[in-house]
Each structure stands twice: as structure tokens, then as C-alpha cells.
């Protein structure tokens, strides 16, 4: 599968490495050239030597998206540090370039939920953290109650 990931921070770089190691074609797009170093954490060879692609630019620029290969992408991951950027570029990938699989990382649970209902697939780390904390606290409280 050809996977395009926009936003190569902690999340994006980690997903990129894992997908590359699992045999997919991975193309990365980030406006900060320094993010390339983050991609290579823990790798024994340069990213490009392992078959990875890397482009400098933003997800709002058609030229950058095209250079990164969006026209042949099977999956698009919006993982920048901004919810608004992720929501806009995910919709660009879906509507303009008709990428079959589009996933956006959204920190704000309420908007993640609403956009999900509108057909933009969202992953909300905040929601995951809330659920885990709830269950941990609930469990602890249950034990305390018993004791």
C-alpha cells in the first residue's frame, strides 16, 4: 500500500517507520526539514535507503502534495500538531484527491466526534486518555471502597 503521512512529529514518524517496516511504501510530508532526523530514530540506514520518501512542504500546497505522491496514495494520515490543519488537509485528500483511506488525528474530542459523523475518519488520543483514566480511577476507587 502507498501511505502518505503529513506531519512528522512523534506520532507521524513512528507510524511512518512501522508501516515501512511492515512492507508498505511510505511517503512523508512536513514543513520542517528537521523532521527528517526524527524519522531515522532507531533505524540503521538512512530513510531513503530503506525505500522511504520524504518531501518538505505543507498539506495545503498542491505542489507539495503532488510531489509527495498523493495522486497514487491508497491511504492518507493527517498527523500534524494542529487539529484545524489536520481537518482541512484530510478533507482535501478525500474530496480533491479522492484518496480511499483518510485518517485524521484530532485532539479535541467533540470535534473528532462530529467530523467522524460527517465521514472524516478521526483518531482522538484525548478520548483514549480520558477513557483509560476513567477506568483506572474507577478501578482504584473500587479497591479503596472494598478496603
Amino acid at each position: 500500500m502507498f501511505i502518505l503521512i503529513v506531519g512528522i512529529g512523534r506520532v507521524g514518524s513512528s507510524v511512518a517507520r512501522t508501516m515501512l517496516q511492515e512492507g508498505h511504501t511510505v511517503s512523508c510530508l512536513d514543513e520542517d526539514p528537521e523532521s527528517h532526523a526524527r524519522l531515522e530514530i532507531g533505524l540503521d540506514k538512512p530513510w531513503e535507503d530503506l525505500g522511504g520518501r520524504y518531501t518538505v512542504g505543507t498539506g495545503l500546497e498542491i505542489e507539495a502534495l503532488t510531489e509527495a505522491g498523493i495522486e497514487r496514495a491508497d491511504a492518507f494520515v493527517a498527523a500534524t500538531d494542529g487539529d484545524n490543519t489536520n481537518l482541512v488537509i484530510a478533507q482535501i485528500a478525500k474530496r480533491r484527491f479522492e484518496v480511499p483511506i483518510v485518517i485524521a488525528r484530532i485532539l479535541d474530542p467533540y470535534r473528532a466526534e462530529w467530523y467522524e459523523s460527517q465521514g472524516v475518519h478521526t483518531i482522538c488520543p484525548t478520548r483514549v486518555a480520558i477513557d483509560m483514566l476513567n477506568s483506572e480511577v474507577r478501578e482504584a476507587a473500587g479497591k479503596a471502597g472494598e478496603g
Partner: protein
Amino acid sequence: MGEGTYVIVVGAGKVGWNLARELLDKGNEVTLLENDRDRFATVEQELEHNVQYGDASELWVLERAGISRADMVIAVTGDDEDNVLICQVAKEKYLCERTIARVNNPRNKQWFELLGVKPVVSATDLILRLIEHEVPEYGLVHLLDLPEQRLEIIEMLLPDDSKAAGVRVGDLEMPDGSLLISVLREGRGFVPGPETVLEPGDEILAVLDPTVEEDLTAYFGPDGASSDGG
């Protein structure tokens, strides 16, 4: 606009603040939203309860501002992503029928259209339009653009060596899909008849299909330039 109209303005920069003030002066109900603490404090001294602190990208901030009863949402922050999403949410989630969004970078205009957010206002485009109008040598001025209807009205100054100068309107061979609608000569406008002879310095108004714009400008342009119209 007027009595009873409720408008939410997002972004209390120069545009938003002045807009909110003008709308209030005209008797509208207005809530201005600003997510920078210092800016909010400054604006609040003048607008008092008409300005609220918060990030309008967050749904609860819009809800607290009463978006469900808003007649219009105007997003004029300095961030295009914020503006487009605030209007998209206002329209699609809260069913606010009228939105106006500011486009800071004209290259992002296409994304506003893609997400169904219109109309948009771009200061860069407005100034470019004014430059075209103020400097007629610039060639042609778009007076009206209806891209979806595939129609536009343009104004064009005939150069001294225009191929169409000295030609009877009845003998013009304009590209298919274009029509001459009036002529401005020495400050006076009139609807030309078949006997009207075009002169250099005339400004012509034409209605046309945007796809034939290049053929049309070549036809009325300087002699020697390439032309499909003959």
C-alpha cells in the same frame, strides 16, 4: 441586516474589531470572539459584554456564544484553517445559513470552495481588482465573475493598434460565446448598433463564456498579436 439580526464575528484583529463596532452601530446584536487574552482585554474595554474570550474552533465556545440562533457567522481571523472550519461547522452542524470567511492567502481560496464555504473575502484579491480598474493599460477588467454559471462580464480598453478599431460592429467576428453589450467613449456609455464603428480608446463591455476570454482579448487586442478570431 438591522434590528434583530444576530451576528457572530470571530477574530478581534483590526478587521473583526472594526466590523463588530460598525455592526453594533447599525443596530445589530453582535458577539465578537477572540482567543488571545491580551487582545481580548483590550477590546473588552470598548465592546464590554459584546466580546467573549475563547477559541472559536472549539464547539462549546461557539455554543456559548449562541450559535444556534445566529443569523450570520463571520470568520476573519489571520488563520485560514480556522476561518474555513469555523464557517464549515457553523453551516453544517449549526445550520447557520449565512457565513462570510476571510481568506488571508489567496492560494487557499480553492480549499474554502472545496469545503463549501462561501462567500469569501480576500484583501489581496480586492486590491488586485482595484489595481486592474485604476490602471486600464493592464488590459482587461473583470466586472462580474460567475464561474459556476460559466459567465463573466469584462471591460477592455481598445489599444491604438487594435485590430477591431475602424470596424463596424455589424462586421465584427467575435468568438462564439461572447457578446458586445456596450461601449464607453469619452466618458459616455452607449449600446452600439450594427453601424457603430469602434475607435481606439473605446472601452468595450462584453459578456462571455470564460473559456473564450483569451480569444476575445486577442481579437480586440493589438494588431500582430496571435488571434483565432481573424
